[in-house]
């Protein structure tokens, strides 16, 4: 029996700040690899992970690669399910407008840009997590 065509639901859970550890960048690399294998990929940003999507990151001063612009390419890799934990934003005094806008293009509707971002509660995120085949935490 061929294994071709098997699509699993993968969720990547991002819980750490960018730059202080390598987790955020490593997660992004693995996400892009998985997407290349035509899998059903979703991303969750919770706890300090919400800082990964902050606008206006400027890394010249710390001498590290600014990978924040790569998130905008997720839509081109058909990754259009991005879940942001609202409680995590609230605890940090942040709102959705502090984060990058991420979109994907719907080819069935003349490539109309649609938002990939879903603001969810922890209860909703828990439910979505439980529906996954594979969950990877970074």
């Amino acid at each position, binding site marked *: 029996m061929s294994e071709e065509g098997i699509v699993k639901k993968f969720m990547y859970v991002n819980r*750490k*700040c*960018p*730059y*202080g*550890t390598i987790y955020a960048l490593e997660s992004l690399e693995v996400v892009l690899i998985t997407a290349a294998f035509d899998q059903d990929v979703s991303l969750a940003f919770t*706890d*300090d992970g919400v*800082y990964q999507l*902050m*606008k*206006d*990151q*400027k*890394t*010249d*001063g*710390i001498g*590290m690669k*600014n990978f*924040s612009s790569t998130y905008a390419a997720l839509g081109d890799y058909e990754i259009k399910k991005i879940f942001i934990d609202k409680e995590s934003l609230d*605890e*940090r*005094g942040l709102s959705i407008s*502090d984060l990058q806008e991420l979109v994907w293009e719907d080819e069935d509707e003349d490539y109309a840009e649609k938002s990939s971002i879903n603001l969810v509660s922890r209860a909703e995120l828990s439910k979505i997590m439980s529906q996954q085949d594979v969950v990877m935490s970074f």
Partner: protein
Amino acid sequence: MSMLHTVNKSPFENSSVASCISMCAKSSSILFIEDAVISVMKSTKFAEMIESSLKDFKIYALKPDLEARGLSLNNVIEGVEIIEYEGFVDLTTEHDSVQSWL
């Protein structure tokens, strides 16, 4: 004896920031670097703890680490001093010793 305390972990991740503040002597200074710079932002759930500790210590945050994380300097708690790497070096020489909270 004056001591410079440096903290590099997010206050949401572990208790380094809270422990440092609770054990810091009055003539000491605290410098937040790397992920710990989140601590000095207004409106996080830790803002009150930082604001009240400003009465007892001088608190600093490293500007390049704030900028890397997209944290606006305008949203830093008033009274916290924002410094560059050169300022970090000055602080280490001005204090008798340095304690790094990991």
